């Protein structure tokens, strides 16, 4: 077990434990905060996979953006002062059974499959090669994402804005 393995298990443990807290926390704000550690652990796993750009995106977008939005969402709740912000769980046993089957299936698949592995060395940085593919092969997707984000922005603003209809 070398150093990388130790770091990997550390991050994996952070991810799984905090994800478990997210599901089980009674207070929704605590759940949101432990989601922060889940994202954090996942970004560490990305780094270990050699996907440094994705790791930074994870930190920037998820921790910096989505979580803030999530907390705002809690704070916007209409009856925040009079109603306890609690999250309960129902039907635990069927859920555990289904998740168990699903997990067993995934683990079984993972070990039994011959994956198409690309044996190339991990590059010094992935961002440049990513940029190169975005400008050449996937240029259409790059521009389409621009339009997707425009539509998403207009849609989000339309829904969240407060002007009513006639």
């Amino acid at each position, binding site marked *: 077990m070398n150093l990388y393995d130790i770091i990997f298990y550390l991050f994996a443990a952070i991810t799984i434990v905090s994800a478990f807290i997210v599901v089980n926390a009674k207070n929704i704000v605590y759940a949101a905060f432990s989601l922060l550690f889940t994202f954090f652990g996942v970004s560490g796993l990305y780094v270990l996979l050699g996907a440094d750009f994705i790791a930074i995106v994870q930190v920037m977008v998820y921790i910096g953006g989505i979580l803030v939005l999530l907390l705002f969402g809690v704070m916007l709740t209409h009856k925040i002062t009079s109603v306890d912000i609690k999250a309960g769980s129902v039907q635990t046993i069927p859920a555990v059974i289904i998740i168990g089957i699903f997990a067993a299936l995934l683990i079984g698949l993972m070990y039994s499959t011959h994956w198409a592995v690309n044996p190339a060395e991990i590059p010094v940085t992935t961002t440049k090669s990513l940029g190169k593919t975005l400008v050449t*092969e996937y240029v259409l997707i790059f521009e389409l994402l621009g339009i997707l984000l425009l539509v998403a922005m*207009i849609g989000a603003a339309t*829904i969240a804005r407060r002007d009513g*209809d*006639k």
Partner: protein
Amino acid sequence: MDFSSLYDSLALIKPEIIISVTLVLIVVLDLIYDKNKKLVPYLALLGLIVSGIYILSDIANEGFAFKMSATSNKFGLLALDSFGSYFKLLIILTSVLIVFFAKHSVEIENTGKRQGEFYTLLFGMILGMMFMVSASDLIMIYVSMELLSFSSYVLAGFIKLRDRNSEASLKYIIFGGVASGVMLFGISLIYGLTGTTNLYSINAALQSGNINLIVLGFSLLLIVAGIGYKISAVPFHFWTPDVYEGAPISITAFLSVASKAAGFAILIRFIKTAFVTNVDGSGNWLLVPVFDWKTLISVFAILTMTLGNFAALWQDNLKRMLAYSSIAHAGYLLLGVVVFSQIGIEAILIYFAIYMLMNLGSFYIVMLIADKTGSEDIHDYSGLGYVTPFLGVSFAVFLVSLTGLPPTAGFIGKLYLFIALIDAKMTTLAVIAVLNSVVSLYYYIRVLKHMFLTKPNGEVKEIKLSTANVVYVIVLLIPVLVLGIYFSPLVNFAESCLAFLSF
């Protein structure tokens, strides 16, 4: 950098470029005229018509756009062929009709200044669908599907002051998020198995063998779940009744026709491109023996038809009834996929054109009545057939056509589907489909019974129609009647549009 291939690619996607430019122009126009939104629908129509003309004029052009320079020179992100062009034409035609639909709709008119956003998002949907029908790369499929989904989530909840509307949007976005996540997981598994996201390269990888079939089956199930969500096939249909009931009627009509068409196009293209090794002389597809598509799609088709039709029997809300009926129609259309032959695809193309006309027509009449009486409940339709005979008779024609009885166009659509089934010796499926049609007769005719035979409780007010309303109904009504008798042009056109780009 080789620019000639880029120019070729851009020349191949002219219709899509025009739609994107129109989207941008609509936003600009919306920003310039803050108060006056009258010009926006006309700009939308202009863009749609120009784009449609380009599709028609380039219908014979074939080729791959945006080729992958690094992996192989042959295949690209998009495969432009006449099959895709047919669906694009269908989408453009539906969109033109929906623009008029929305112009006549009171609930859209009441959104006032937000009409600019309405058309922007509508074009977001159209653009997503146009790219979807010709996507031949899993990444492209995913991105275009997301573009379609984002816009439709917002549009489903566009009328903000109605609770039902927000509920529809929320349900749509939660189920949709799960479906697209599941599909993305399937895509990643396929990439892990084959090392490529291009459908053509996946085909080559599958033919070379050495693939774990269990994992492949699992990932295909996940991808089918994502696509099945878009075409609202059972068991991925939960959202359909609530969303169709809650969304503005124009968007419901659009979702039930265009969104479904794009979903079917991508399902067919996915199977055809990634799994078919050869098409034999009589048009049958030879599939790579890695996954039992036939059983899977047959089960989906039977479930979808049966559940859609039986659930529709108990619906009193007309929009909800039409939602279940559209689920049932997705089931009939899946029968065309099941036969895995050119005849089956031809039947789907014919059915979709007819389905567009009759479904839009029914939704339009429901909208006209709902705008005047404020109700979509079947009991409020009592006696309407006598006070406004025009609406009653045309609604009757559309519903009879949806059932699939002669002499309407719906009969021709079903006929071709059943011929394809019998041709492939799938008599059991054909019998189930016929029985389902009989069931569907009950709930379609029930509406007519209420309109013509039930005595109304109070006095029924006459529904005043503007000339534009009458013209719109007639424009949809005449093809439904004419195609029931003189259908060879449509059949010939569909037959000429069967070509898939393959190697």
